[in-house]
């Protein structure tokens, strides 16, 4: 079934008004049916609970409640109506350490400002086309952070308790081929 975004609902959480309006107009141009708006992470979580949107697009730096705090609440709070909702971060940070922070908070995708209309539209299509498994662990709840599926991998199992291999901080598999 081809895309029919008129049935899609998106929550845009962004504190800079011109940016928020622009994101809304881009979503409008690709015919997103319902667009909710919030100016902070705190308001964002409130609107999320109220409207239960299909996708959240969120800035990082906001007050009260930044994008990381809101993402953790969507993933973990008992009031959250859908802990599995895709969350797309839209931020000026482009350092890998920042992407890792967003990922570890439970973000699904990440777009760097400045972005293009195509960047935003493609990420929306991507999170719909490629839904991710979710991991429920003591230290993390969110999309599976392993993104690669290498059918050619013939090595040993890679969990710490599977072998003496090294592990990421959550015990998920890592790419030993990348280890020096």
């Amino acid at each position, binding site marked *: *079934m*081809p*895309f*029919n*975004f008129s*049935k899609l609902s998106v929550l845009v959480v962004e504190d800079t008004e*011109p*940016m928020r309006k622009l994101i809304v107009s*881009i979503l409008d*141009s*690709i*015919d997103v049916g319902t667009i909710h708006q919030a100016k902070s992470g705190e308001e964002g979580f409130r609107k999320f609970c109220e409207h239960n949107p299909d996708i959240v697009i969120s800035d990082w*730096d906001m007050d009260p409640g930044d994008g990381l705090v809101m993402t953790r609440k969507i993933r973990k709070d008992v009031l959250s109506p859908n802990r*599995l909702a895709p969350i797309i971060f839209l931020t*000026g*940070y*482009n*350092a*890998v*350490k*920042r*992407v*890792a922070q967003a990922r*570890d908070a439970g*973000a699904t995708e*990440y777009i760097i*400002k*400045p*972005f*293009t*209309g*195509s*960047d935003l*539209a*493609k*990420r929306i*299509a*991507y999170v*719909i*086309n*490629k*839904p991710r*498994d979710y*991991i*429920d*662990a003591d230290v993390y709840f969110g999309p599976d*952070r392993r*993104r*690669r*599926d290498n059918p050619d991998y013939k090595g040993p199992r890679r*969990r*710490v308790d599977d072998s003496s291999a090294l*592990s*990421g901080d*959550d015990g*998920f598999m890592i*790419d030993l081929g*990348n*280890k*020096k």
Partner: protein
Amino acid sequence: MANDNKTSAKKARAIMPATRLLQSKVGNGKIKPEKIQKAENKLEAVRGRLDISPFADEHIAEIKDLLKQIKKPDASLDITDDFSRSIMKFKGNIGIFSEGPLIGLTMIMLNWIESIEKIDQDVLDVLNGYYVTLDQIFSDKLKDPKMIEVIIKEMQSACERYFSKHPELQLTQVIDNSKAFYIDQSNHSDVKVGLDMNDDLHDDHLIGQDD
């Protein structure tokens, strides 16, 4: 035994398989190129047409205040996070709403400040140079576009000189929007960021006419 407990505490309690519920609601496949073009047109319609001086005034005031704080003897490295946040926000806004070389300056500065591991006089000099440059540009003391470009190049050189002087530091690893959101492990001292062959964002996967 203690080690076993530590390991099991880190293990996933459950893996919830990906759900196709959203696809059953809104479909899947590709976005039509004409819709992408409409989205691009929305951006082009605002680029260069919004007065960015309110963003600049706020950013310059923040940098001025942070400069005062970072010069205090008890300033901690955490304050570089505040510089990062302010530069990041300014970069995002001017990159969307304005044209010209300023976006380049903010990108250089953001990547540089995100790499800093200690505060010294060289750091203060670069930050001060950044503040003076922005202040000159937005107070209209610096109007010649060629001169602005020269100063921006000088700021870039200042950042490069900083790294030459501190060879133990490395410029922070950055990504761009062509990359899927994918990092191999939490310890980013040894990360791989990139496109998975199965998880790419190439146009032919996401943009086109669905049959």
